[in-house]
């Protein structure tokens, strides 16, 4: 569906010629996020600089009944920032200001296009940081982090994005500017901030975000333990948590990933190990020292092959470099891969790892693992060759089987990437019709016309349609007259 000339003219009047991208080659950049399986360019891309402009865009689109698709940095992994129904994509790349730094009250207010790491860079010298650290933090925007409720390695200790968002300003699907939450400690009314985080743009466009900042810890210690197999490493993870230690991060890489990383960035991880655990502790120095000793002891009890502790910042950076560049390094072992994001209860890690090995063998596909073991959030890269007929289908089949296994163990479809177009079909695995219907109606509260990022987050399912009635409790006979 092309935009009408009057809508295009109105957008250009509003944003100026530099604020509207209409050419096919210009729009091509915006046809997908990092999950390139889903490609659909919008009819126009607009680049607002203020809340007022965003509101005017949404009102215009609402009048013309045109879909609105938000985009931060386009680093999402779920087909969230793509326009299957066309319409107007609102790219937040010109809304990058820090509106207020209020260190006395441990918070900052920023525009949605601000890059995650830039916020920490702005306050680090004064001893503060913004805790959510998705692996994309050098390029992903805080607005995008809010839309997907992004996680990251350090959310094991610090919590995911929602735990750090104090308030939001959003232009909802009704075209209203709604300000919710804020820096003060009490608020009357429903927790709209809480329910808006993770909405994936389906409620509206976030135009300002107040976030909690944390003081940098006194000490940080990073340790590495290698194991003969994923199962043994997983057992060590369970033992660490069971011992009452919540590391800042607890990451795992398997042999395929160790090989890829070593080939890409030099030999940072020991060869010949079936799995390595990267364990980071932070906090008061004495706490970190004591916990590092206990963690090392637990790893040795669990038959770790080697346990080493980074001696200085350079060694620590090197251990992390391998982890942070893992997704890129995998290009050395495969042309294409599917990325899974399911979660299992962390005590079930050894079990799901055995299952994964079985699935990998059954489909004769390589699985490369690099994931947030501490909270049971799996990220297997299911490798396939897209030039070989049928291999993508096999990878998809393996992906589905693993997801079913995770759900069967009490897990969840997505731990931190979100749902988008990619995983919407999987939500009925986890939610009953009444649950889906509740979410559908919740969406409609914010977006009555169904124009905000359509075809994302919720599945096309009868429970997510008008007029669906979930089954009610059966009332005893005699209570009806």
């Amino acid at each position, binding site marked *: 569906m092309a935009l009408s000339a009057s809508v295009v003219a109105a957008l250009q009047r509003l944003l100026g010629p530099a604020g509207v991208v209409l050419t096919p080659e210009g729009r091509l950049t915006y046809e997908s996020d990092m999950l390139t399986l889903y490609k659909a360019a919008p009819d126009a891309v607009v680049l607002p600089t203020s809340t007022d402009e965003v509101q005017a865009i949404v009102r215009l689109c609402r009048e013309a009944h045109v879909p609105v698709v938000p985009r931060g940095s386009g680093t999402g992994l779920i087909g969230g920032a793509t326009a299957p129904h066309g319409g107007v994509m609102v790219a937040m790349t010109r809304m990058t200001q820090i509106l207020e730094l209020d260190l006395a009250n441990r918070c900052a207010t920023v525009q949605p296009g601000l890059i995650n790491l830039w916020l920490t860079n702005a306050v680090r010298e004064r001893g503060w940081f913004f805790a959510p650290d998705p692996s994309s933090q050098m390029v992903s925007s805080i607005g995008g982090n809010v839309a997907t409720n992004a996680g990251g390695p350090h959310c094991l200790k610090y919590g995911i994005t929602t735990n750090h968002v104090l308030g939001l300003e959003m232009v909802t699907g009704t075209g209203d500017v709604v*300000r919710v939450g804020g820096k*003060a400690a*009490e608020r009357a009314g429903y927790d709209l901030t809480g329910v808006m985080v993770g909405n994936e743009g389906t409620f509206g466009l976030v135009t300002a975000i107040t976030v909690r900042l944390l*003081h940098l810890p006194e000490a940080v210690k990073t340790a590495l333990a290698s194991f003969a197999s994923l199962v043994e490493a997983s057992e060590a993870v369970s033992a660490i948590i069971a011992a009452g230690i919540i590391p800042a991060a607890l990451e795992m890489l398997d042999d395929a990933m160790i090989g890829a990383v070593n080939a890409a960035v030099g030999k940072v991880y020991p060869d010949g190990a079936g799995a390595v655990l990267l364990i980071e502790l932070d906090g008061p120095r004495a706490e970190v020292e004591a916990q590092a000793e206990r963690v090392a002891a637990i790893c040795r009890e669990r038959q770790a092959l080697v346990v080493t502790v980074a001696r200085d910042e350079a060694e620590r950076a090197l251990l992390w470099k391998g982890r942070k560049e893992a997704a890129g390094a995998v290009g050395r072992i495969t042309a294409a891969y599917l990325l899974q994001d399911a979660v*299992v209860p962390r005590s079930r890690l050894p079990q799901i790892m055995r299952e994964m090995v079985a699935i990998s063998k059954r489909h004769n596909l390589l699985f490369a693992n690099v994931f947030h073991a501490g909270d049971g959030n799996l990220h297997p890269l299911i490798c396939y060759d897209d030039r070989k007929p049928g291999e993508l289908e096999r990878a998809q089949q393996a992906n589905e089987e693993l997801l079913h296994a995770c759900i069967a163990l009490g897990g*969840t479809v997505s731990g931190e990437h979100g749902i988008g177009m990619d995983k919407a079909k999987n939500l009925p695995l986890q939610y009953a019709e009444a649950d889906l219907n509740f979410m559908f109606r919740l969406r409609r509260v914010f977006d009555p016309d169904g124009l905000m990022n359509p075809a994302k987050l919720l599945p096309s399912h009868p429970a997510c349609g008008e007029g669906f009635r979930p*089954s009610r409790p059966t009332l005893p006979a005699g209570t009806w007259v």
Partner: protein
Amino acid sequence: MAVTTGAALADGLRAIVGAEHVREGGSPVDGVVPRWSAAPASIEQAAALVALAHDAGLAVFPRGSGSTLELGHAAARVDLVLETRRLDAVLEYNPDDLTVTVQAGCTAGALATRLAPRRQMLPLDPPGWSARSLGGIAATQASGPLRLRYGTMRDLLLGVRFAQADGVLTWGGAKVVKSVSGYDVPKLMVGALGTLGVLLELTLRLHPAPDYESTWLASFRTPAHAQECVAALLDSTVQPNRLELLDSRVLAVCNLPVSAAALVISIGTVEPAVRAEEGLVKAIVQRAHGTTETMGASFWRTYDRALAGFDGVTLRIGTVPARLVETLGAVQAVLPGAAMAGAAGLGALRALITHADAATLLEALERLRATVGEVDGAVIVERAPRAVRERLDPWGPVPAAALTVMRTMKTEFDPRGVLNPGRFVGGL
């Protein structure tokens, strides 16, 4: 057509929960004797009660431990009190995952007893926490000192099962510590006072109990010095798990040495770290011209009892940590007899007022709300007699655009006004 006669309704309620668990009348809630009180034994029974109430046009008033019945607007109608006291089971405790699923009527104290052998805890400690139901703590978003380090129910509730206004049993969230699958429905239910659904089951994130904990009292000559100390602690690497501000009146109630203002600071972690942090804490207090003394762990029980046992009007005041002095001053100016305490590191304070008539309180609320409104804060009447609350807005103003969304939400999920009607913000 739904039941209309009282007799048919009574039969229906008895058929759902059994005759012995339905009473005509029952103990008054918020000064009103209900038409019926019923105590379901299962979530299915609870859902059926809500469905019946929905069809019969009854107003449902969910009740946990009964600690917070005076929060919100005075209840206009109380047709059916749904008591969660029999829904008190710990359904699934997974110590190795640090998660637990409980029924809404389970008390925080009962859960704590269950978790203690594994040295784990649910770090929620609103005044009188031990006797309070977890469903009630969720519905009222009640918090206490541990909020500084662990957050509130909103940060700990992973999944929730509730009955919608028409009785449909619904689940939101997940049973694992990390999930972004679908909308964050649990957040919507926390602090909603049961107006969008009756909470029946909660899946909660647990934390390891600290190996070792120490508590110190820091006394100051002026509130300004206490504020200076709070600022210095927040801008340091010290990681307290509690940082409470106590004014002279609360100090007296707790039988502590009385000063103009005091901070009670606790640190919980491994023993060598607590000892190392103690030096830092003392140095920071000293720089702010305060004096430090070590307290026993029993202080937190004393403090809890002092706040929970207070008989009068309670206000929850939400401000920011850099405005403690202004907030204390503003309260003293309008309510000279008020006692104040709260989480200084967050600006979450409570004012306890023994004697206040409705007219005084009405004027005080207006002025306090203007003061904290400068930082978008709120003053919520957590507890006051019905006669007082009938004359004022216990919630305070909510910005118009946000209130419109809340009203749309309530209309969508409870169009007939079954769930705690009229008690929430804006009379929702």
